[in-house]
C-alpha cells in the first residue's frame, strides 16, 4: 500500500522557479523573438526569484521539517547554502558568458534555458536526501551541461568537448547509479538518513556489497568534481567548451558533486568512515599532486585552470576527510566565484567563444589593460591560497579539519602541493607583468566586468573579514 507523499512546495520552490524560468525563456523566445536584453531580464528575474526563495527556506527552515516529500528532499542548511552558491554561480556565469550567449543569436535562448535547467537539476541534487532523487538531479544537470559544452557548434573543439563530456559523463552516471543500486541491495534504503540509521544499527560488519556500492558512488561523483584519476575529461572540456560558459559549467558541477559527496559520506555512511577515509584521502593526494604537477607544464591557460581545478578537488577532499563541512562549503563558495572570475578573464582575453587560450595571449597584459590583469592576479593569488585572500582562509579551514581528524601527513602533502600550485599561478602573473607585450590592441570587455569586480571583492574582503561567510557556512550543517 503506497502512501501518497506529502507536498512541501517550499522545499523545491527554487528548483521549480529555475525550471519555469527556463521554460519561460524558451516560450518568450518562440513567441516574440525578442532582443537578448529581454532574455537577460527574464533570466535575471528567475535567478533573483530562486535566490529569494532559497533565502526564504533559510529563514523558514527548522530541523524538524527539514525533510520533505517523505524524505526525498531536505531543506537543511547544507542544501540551502550550496543552493545559494549554485544560484550565485548561475548569475555570475550568465554574466560572464553573456557576450557568448548574445553572440549565439536565436540559439541564445536555448543557452540560457539550458543553464537555468542545469542549475535547477544540480540544486535538486544538493537538496535530495534520496539517492535516486540525487541521480535525477545529477542527470538533469549533467545532460544540460553536455549540450552547453557543444553550444559553439561551428567549432570542432566544441563538438569534441561535448562528445567526450557526454560519453564519459554518462559512463560515470551509470557507475554512480549502479553504486546506488548496490547500496540499495545491501541496505534496502535509498534515503541517506535511512542508510545512516541502518548502519548505526549494524552490530557486525555490514555486507561487502555496500562497500562496493559506496565505492562506485564515490567514483561517480569524483568524476563530476574532476578528482584524479577521474579528471581526464576536465582539461579537454574546459579547453573545448565555449569560453564564456566554461566557468559556470566547471563550477556548478564541482559544487554539486562535492555537496553530494559530503552528504553521502558524512551523513549517509559516516559509520563506514574507517574504511572510506583512507580511500578519499588517497584520491585527495593523487588529485593535489597530479593536478599541480600537470598544471605546471600547461601552455594553455584554460587547461591550466582545469588541472588547477583537479588539485583544488584534492584540497577540498582534505576537508571532506576532516569532516569539516563548514570549511568545505566555504571553500566551494570561494572557489566557485574565483573560478568563474578566472574564466571571465579568459573570455575577455581569448574571446567569448574561442577554443583554448594560449598563455602567449596574456603577454604584457599588465600593460595592455592593467585593471584586467590586476583582477586576474588577485584571483590567481586567491586560488593559490596566499594570505589576505579568501583562498588562504579556505585552505586553512580544510587543512585544519584534516589535521584534526588525524591526517597530519595529508596536510603536509597538501601544503607542499600548494607551493607547486603557487608556482604555476605565478607563471601566468609573470607572463602578464614581466614579459614585454606581444599582443596589441585593446580588449573588449562586457558584463564580465561585474563578475570580476565581485570576484576580486570576494577574494580580498572575505580574505580579510572571513567571519561573515564562515559563520554562514558553520550554520549550514547537513541533517
Amino acid at each position, binding site marked *: 500500500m503506497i502512501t501518497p507523499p506529502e507536498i512541501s512546495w517550499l522545499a523545491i520552490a527554487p528548483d521549480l522557479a529555475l525550471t519555469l524560468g527556463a521554460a519561460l525563456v524558451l516560450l518568450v523566445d518562440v513567441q516574440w523573438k525578442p532582443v537578448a536584453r529581454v532574455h537577460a531580464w527574464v533570466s535575471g528575474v528567475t535567478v533573483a526569484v530562486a535566490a529569494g526563495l532559497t533565502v526564504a527556506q533559510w529563514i523558514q527552515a527548522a530541523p524538524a521539517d527539514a525533510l520533505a516529500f517523505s524524505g526525498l528532499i531536505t531543506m537543511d542548511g547544507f542544501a540551502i547554502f550550496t543552493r545559494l552558491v549554485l544560484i550565485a554561480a548561475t548569475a555570475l556565469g550568465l554574466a560572464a558568458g553573456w557576450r557568448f550567449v548574445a553572440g549565439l543569436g536565436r540559439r541564445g535562448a536555448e543557452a540560457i534555458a539550458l543553464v537555468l535547467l542545469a542549475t535547477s537539476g544540480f540544486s535538486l541534487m544538493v537538496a535530495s536526501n534520496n539517492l535516486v532523487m540525487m541521480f535525477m538531479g545529477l542527470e538533469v544537470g549533467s545532460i544540460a551541461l553536455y549540450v552547453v559544452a557543444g553550444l559553439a557548434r561551428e567549432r570542432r573543439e566544441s563538438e569534441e568537448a561535448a562528445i567526450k563530456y557526454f560519453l564519459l559523463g554518462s559512463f560515470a552516471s551509470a557507475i554512480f547509479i549502479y553504486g546506488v543500486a548496490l547500496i540499495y541491495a545491501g541496505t534496502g534504503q535509498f534515503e541517506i538518513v535511512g542508510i545512516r540509521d541502518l548502519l548505526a544499527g549494524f552490530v557486525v560488519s555490514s555486507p561487502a556489497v555496500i562497500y562496493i556500492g559506496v565505492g562506485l558512488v564515490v567514483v561517480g561523483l569524483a568524476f563530476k568534481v574532476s578528482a584524479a584519476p577521474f579528471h581526464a575529461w576536465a582539461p579537454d572540456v574546459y579547453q573545448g567548451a565555449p569560453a564564456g560558459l566554461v566557468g559556470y559549467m566547471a563550477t556548478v558541477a564541482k559544487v554539486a558533486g562535492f555537496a553530494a559527496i559530503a552528504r553521502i559520506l558524512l551523513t549517509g555512511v559516516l559509520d563506514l568512515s574507517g574504511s572510506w577515509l583512507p580511500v578519499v584521502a588517497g584520491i585527495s593526494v593523487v588529485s593535489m599532486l597530479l593536478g599541480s604537477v600537470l598544471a605546471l607544464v600547461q601552455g594553455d591557460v584554460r587547461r591550466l585552470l582545469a588541472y588547477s581545478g583537479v588539485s583544488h578537488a584534492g584540497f577540498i577532499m582534505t576537508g571532506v576527510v576532516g569532516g569539516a563541512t563548514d570549511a568545505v562549503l566555504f571553500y566551494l563558495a570561494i572557489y566557485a566565484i574565483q573560478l568563474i572570475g578566472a574564466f571571465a578573464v579568459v573570455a575577455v582575453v581569448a574571446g567569448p567563444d574561442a577554443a583554448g587560450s594560449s598563455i602567449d595571449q596574456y603577454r604584457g597584459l599588465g600593460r595592455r589593460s592593467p585593471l584586467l590583469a590586476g583582477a586576474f592576479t588577485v584571483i590567481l*593569488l586567491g586560488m593559490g591560497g*596566499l*594570505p*589576505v585572500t579568501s583562498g*588562504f582562509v579556505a585552505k*586553512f579551514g580544510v*587543512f*585544519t579539519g584534516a*589535521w*584534526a581528524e588525524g591526517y*597530519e601527513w595529508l*596536510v*603536509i602533502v597538501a*601544503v*607542499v602541493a*600548494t*607551493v607547486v600550485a*603557487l*608556482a604555476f599561478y*605565478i607563471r601566468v602573473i*609573470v607572463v602578464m*607583468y*614581466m614579459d614585454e607585450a606581444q599582443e596589441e590592441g585593446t580588449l573588449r570587455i562586457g558584463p564580465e566586468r561585474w563578475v570580476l569586480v565581485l570576484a576580486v571583492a570576494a577574494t580580498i574582503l572575505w580574505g580579510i573579514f*572571513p*567571519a561573515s561567510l*564562515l559563520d554562514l557556512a*558553520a550554520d549550514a550543517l547537513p541533517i
Partner: protein
Amino acid sequence: MLTALVLLPVVAAIVVMLVPGGRREVHLPLGIALSIFPLALAGYLFWVFEPAAGFQYVDRVTWYEPWGIDWHLGVDGISLPMVVLTTLLVPIALAASTSIDRRIKEFVVYTLFLEAGLIGAFLSLDLFLFFVFFEAMLIPMYFIIGIWGSERRIYAAMKFLIYTAFGSALMLAAIIGLALTHVDQTGSASFALSDLAALDLSVGAERLFFAAFAIAFAIKVPLFPFHTWLPDAHVEAPTAGSVLLAAVLLKLGTYGLLRFNMALFPEASVDAIPIMAILAVIGIIYGAVVAIVQPDLKKLVAYSSVSHLGFIVLGTFALTSGGLQGAVIQNVNHGLTTGALFLLVGMIYDRRHTKKIADFGGLQKTVPLLAGFFLFMTFASIGLPGLNGFIGEFLVLMGSFPALPSLTVIAALGVVLAAIYLLWAYERVFTGVPDKDENKALSDLSAREIALLAPLAALIVVIGIYPGLLLDKITPSTEAVIDHVVEQTDFVVPEPGRIADVHVAGDEG
C-alpha cells in the same frame, strides 16, 4: 598605536594608487613623503617604549572567534628595533630609486605594501596573523624583483618566492598543529603566542614543529645550505629591493627564530643548539670564503650577508645575555651597514651600469666621496670597533664562547675573512689609477645621495660608540627569553652567561 603603524603604509599605498598618471615626479616624492609618517610614529614609539614593561601597546581584536584568531599586535625590545629599522629604511630605499624609469607608481605602491607587511610581521603576537604577514609580503617583494630587476630577474623572483613559500608552507602545517594541540589541551582555539607557548608538547611533536619553523626561518635568514636564493635575488633586484631584502626581510628569519622557536619550543631549541650553531658557523665561514672570489660586487655583499647572519643565529642559540643582545643588535647593524652597502653599489651601478668588479679600478680618484662612504661601510661591516658592527659581533662572540667554545673560535675566523673579501674588493674597485675611460669621467655623490647615506653612517657611529641607546631597550626582552627557556627546560646558562654574573664580577673589579 601599533595598528596605526601597520596601517599607515597601507593608507599611503592607497593614496599613491589614487594619484592618477604614471609620472615619477608625482609619485616618488609623494611616496617618500608619506613613508615619513610611519618613521615618525616608530620614532615616537621608540621614545616612549618602556624597556622593563615587556610587550606593550598591545592591540587585540578578535578576528574570527571560532578559530581563535586575533588581530593581536604588541611590541617588545626585540621587535622594536626592527620596526624602527624598517620604517627608517623604506624612505631611504624609495629615495634611492630615482633611477627607476618605468612604472614608478606601482613600484612605490609595492614598496609601501611591503613595509606594511614587514611591520606587521614584526609586531604580530598571533601566529595566524604573523603567518599572514609573513607570507603576504612575499608578493610585493616578488614584484619588485621581477619587474624592476635586471636580466635574470624572473628566474630570481620565482626562486625567491617558491623557496620561501615552501618554507612557510611547512610552518603553516606546524602552526595548524600547534593550534589544534591547544584545542585538545584547553578545549578552546587560540593562536596567541603566549597561549601556544604555554602548551606542553610531547618531545616528538615539539621537535617536529621546531623543525618546521626552523626550516621556514632558516630559508629566510638564509642559513647554509638554504642560502642559494639570496645571491640571485640580490643580484637581480633593484637597489631598493636589495636594501629592503637584506636589511629587513632576512631579519624575519633571525627574528622568527628568536621570537617563535625559543618561545614555543624551548625544549627542542635547547636540543637543537648544536645543529643550529653548526649550521650558523658553517654559514659564517662558507659565506665569507665564497664571497672572496665573487666577480660581482652585489653578489659579494650578498654572500657577506650569509656570513654576517650566521653570527646572529650563533648568538641566538648560544642563549646567553651577550649572545642574544648581540644577535638582536646585530639585526639592526647588519640592516644599516649592508643596506648602506647595497645603496652604494646601486649608486655605482647608476653611474657605470655594471656591477662586475673587474670593470672598475681607481674610482677613489674620480669619486672620492663615494669611495669614502664605501670604505666606511666596509669597515663597519668588517666589525671595526667604534662602529656598530663590532658591538654585535663582539657581543655574540663573547656571549657564545662560554656556551660553545670551539664553534665560537671557528666563527671568529669569519672576522678575518671579512677583512679579506671586503678590503680586496675595495682595493680592486677603488684604488690604483683609473685606467678605463668609463671610470675616468664619473660624477661624485650628489647631495641627495649623501643625504641618503649620512643618516645611516651617523647611526652606525652612534651605535658603535653608545650602544646603550639600543641595548637598554633590548636587554629586558632578551633576558625574558632566557628566563623562559630556563624555566621551561633544565637548560643551565653557562657561566658567565647572564648579565647578573657579569655585574657581580664588574662590581668586584
